[in-house]
Each structure stands twice: as structure tokens, then as C-alpha cells.
């Protein structure tokens, strides 16, 4: 059984939100133009984070509601393979949307320097997506999707509070996206590449951990 066959029952949940939201972002970029490409790249990173994590958590909620893993455990498939398939679906979604984001940035006619800065911002965003989403999904498998969602909301709240403190202190003005954009654009490309590799490594390392976590908690 292939990875695709395992996740096939939820394929629309995996594909529809990313395609829909990304299409809206592309229409916006081409119709209104992009005043601040680095901020736009940061926004793309946040959008990718939401549209790849949200379906995964919704699917986990459905599995919890139906005791889906207890059902799957009666079938000829290892739960660790089910978990791996879900992780890989998320992994490919993040990377595909990241690549699509770079293509989108390149196709709106940015000058070379700005394209490099905005692409780097997106790469850093994707790296953080890989790390954070894999951790949240492990938490969802271990403690349930509701506690994982609480962690997610708490983290978002803390980031916004941090943004407010930073802005109030006069260190950096603007929104979370613009502050992230400023920080990310200061990061050199080699470091961004290393962070992307680290993101991929952390994500892939979380897969066997998640498999063991779920296998120990089927019933």
C-alpha cells in the first residue's frame, strides 16, 4: 500500500485549502501588485503554515472522534506507516507550496536583490514551518488535537505580544510579518540554507518519534 492510498480518504482536505488560499494570494499579487515583497514573502510563509497544519489537525480530530486509529489497527497496515504517510503528505505540501511561493515571487517581476531577499524570507519561513508543524503534529498524536491547537494558539498569542513589546520599546515598528521580514532579511543566505536543512532534518526525525508515540496509544 502506497503513502497516497493511506491518505487518499482525506486527499481533498490536504489539497483544497492550500490550492484555494494560494490561488487567492496569487490573484492578489498579480492584480494589486506587491508593495513590500519581503513582507509578502513573510505573509506567504504564515499562509503556508496555516494551510498545511490546519488540515492535518482537522484530520486528527476526525480520527479521534471516530477512533480511527483503533479501526486502522485492525487492517493490514502498520500504524507507524499511517503516521509516516500523514507526515510525508504535510512535508510535500510545505515544500511544494514553498516552491510555488518562490515561483510566484519570481513571476511578479521583482528586481534581483528584492527577489533574493523575499525568497530568503520565504525559505526561512518554510524552515520554521517544518520544525514547528512536526512538533505540533507529534503533540497532537500524543495528547490529542485539541491540546495541540491550544499550544498553537498560545504560541501565536505570545508572538503577537512579543511583537507589541518590541514595537512599544521602539526597537522595531510594524506588524509580526514586517518584524519577521526585517529579521529574516538580515540573515545571510548560507544560514538560511542551513536552517532549511535543519528544518528538513527535524521534520524527518520526528516521523519515527510520532510513529512510536501513536503505536503506544492506539487504544
Amino acid at each position, binding site marked *: *500500500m502506497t503513502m497516497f*492510498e493511506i491518505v*487518499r*480518504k482525506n486527499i481533498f482536505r490536504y489539497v483544497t485549502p492550500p490550492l484555494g488560499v494560494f490561488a487567492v494570494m496569487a490573484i492578489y499579487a498579480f492584480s494589486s501588485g506587491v508593495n513590500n515583497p519581503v513582507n509578502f514573502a513573510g505573509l506567504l510563509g504564515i499562509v503556508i503554515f496555516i494551510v498545511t497544519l490546519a488540515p492535518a489537525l482537522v484530520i486528527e480530530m*476526525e480520527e479521534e*472522534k*471516530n*477512533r*480511527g486509529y*483503533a*479501526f486502522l*489497527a*485492525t*487492517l*493490514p*497496515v*502498520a500504524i507507524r506507516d499511517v503516521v509516516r504517510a500523514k507526515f510525508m503528505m504535510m512535508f510535500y505540501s510545505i515544500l511544494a507550496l514553498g516552491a510555488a511561493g518562490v515561483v510566484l515571487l519570481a513571476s511578479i517581476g521583482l528586481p534581483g536583490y528584492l527577489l533574493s531577499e523575499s525568497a530568503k524570507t520565504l525559505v526561512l519561513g518554510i524552515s520554521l514551518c517544518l520544525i514547528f508543524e512536526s512538533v505540533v503534529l507529534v503533540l497532537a498524536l500524543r495528547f490529542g488535537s485539541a491540546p495541540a491547537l491550544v499550544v498553537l494558539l498560545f504560541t501565536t498569542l505570545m508572538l503577537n505580544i512579543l511583537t507589541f513589546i518590541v514595537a512599544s520599546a521602539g526597537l522595531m515598528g510594524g506588524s509580526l510579518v514586517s518584524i519577521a521580514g526585517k529579521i529574516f532579511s538580515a540573515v545571510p543566505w548560507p544560514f538560511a540554507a542551513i536552517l532549511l536543512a535543519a528544518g528538513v532534518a527535524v521534520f524527518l526525525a520526528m516521523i519515527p518519534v510520532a510513529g512510536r508515540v501513536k*503505536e*503506544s496509544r*492506539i*487504544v
Partner: protein
Amino acid sequence: MDNVLEARNLRKEYAGFALRDVSLTIPRGYILGLIGPNGAGKTTTIRMLMNIVKPSAGEIRIFGMDPAENEKAVKDRIGFVGDEQFYYENRSVAWTEKFVSRFFDNWNGELFGRLLGGFGIERSAAISRLSKGMRVKLSIAIALSHDPEFLVLDEPTAGLDPVVRREVLDRLMEFRGNEERSILISSHITDDIMRVADGVAFIVDGAIVLRDEKDSIAADWKRIHFRPGAVAGRALAGLSCVRESAFGHSGITREYSKIKEELARGAASGDVRVENATLDDVLISFVKGE
């Protein structure tokens, strides 16, 4: 004769409960009933065999393979019906068939359709609208539709009315028609085990306390009814669960062949009456332990 199942010294510890050195062997073509009171460890044992729960010690071989390492290959040859039936509730029976059929190499849609028809389940029926009995029947239809060599059934008839219970057991006997197929069936409804099993294992408080052929149990385990004073000495000492009864007293022996002669005179005079102990009697004897 080769064994479809060999489980040795399985252990599992939970807070307030431990499964202790459970060993089970099931030859090909054999039906083993696993009997025990609620909470004795039947479901934990079966979940370990299905790799749903990891044993803390012990070894399992199904078709000669470790199910933890060969999950796909092993489960492809097993039909499983759990003590609870989980499905995706917002889906239909037809969707469920399509979903599960992708996991099995030998899925037989035509057989599944026939079983559903026999059970009176519509393919278009919503899972959420199925009764408890229908859910069990659907589970059995799924378990049988991929030509399994080994059926593992955890309390499949619990909570079912007698009509549905009989229907379910009839299907199991039909499955057994092929002498190459084996069944492990757990239940605390001993009548069901009596009807279908070749051998019985009793599990009490996390340990197998008796594993024997059904015929041997019938030969060795007897309920002795006796008038006061009619049974004494070794025969009386060997009785458990001695109670007052309409006859006088009654108790259970597990060594009838050894006390048969001592009881012969009382039996001849009508002061002793011997009857086969039921599996319930045997179970109660182990649980009460008197």
C-alpha cells in the same frame, strides 16, 4: 500439524492489573475459546496478538512470523472482530468497503456483498445508523471477505440478542467448514464457546489457569450433588464451590476419574448424582477458588 499461533510468556503491566506469562498455541484448523470474567485479560491478550498493544515481555508468532515486524503480511491473513466496532461514522457501508478493500490483497467484493445481504445490511446504509448488532455483523463481513486463514474474535457476541448471536455463530461455523481455518474466540458467554470451540483456555486475573480440550473438560469436570454425609474424605476435599442445593449439597470436582469409585456407592443408592460441569461452573470454580 503446524500452528497458526504461538504465544509464549506474554506479559503486560497496567496500574492495578498485570497479564502474567500467558502462553497460547493454536494448531491449524483448530478453534480455541478463551474464557474469562470481565477484566481477566482476554482483550489485552488479543490486542497483543493483533499488535495493538505491545507486550512488555514474551514472544508472539502468527503463521511463523512476528506480527510486530510483519504487520501487513500477518494481518492480511487474519480476520479480526474486536470487542468494539470502530468505523468512520459519517461514511456509508459502501465507502467503508471501498476503504478497507484497498488494504487487503485478497478482497472479495462479491463475498462481502453476499454476507451483507445475508445479514440484511444495505450497502448504502450510513454507518452512524447501524445498530450494535449490525455493526458486529459488518465487522464479521469485513473479517471474512478477504479469505482469512485465522479469525481472531474478541467478545463478538457480547451485547447481542440471542437471534443475532446465533446468526453470528452460524457464520463462524460456516467459516470453519474449511478445516484449514482456525479461530480464536474470546467470550464470557460460555454457551457460545461450548457451541463452537474444540478447546478452551480459561484466563483468570491475568493468567491462563486451564488449557484443555473441550471433551477432556467434560470428562474431568463434574458437578456432584450429594445428600449430607454421602460424600466424605478425599472426594469431599476435592470439591470446590460447595453449596447447599435442593438435592442437599453440590460441589465441583476437576478430578472426577480419581474419585469416581468413592462416589459409586452413593450414586447407586441415589444419594449422589453426577452431571457434567458447565464451562460456567469451571470458570466460577477458578474465580471463587474455594
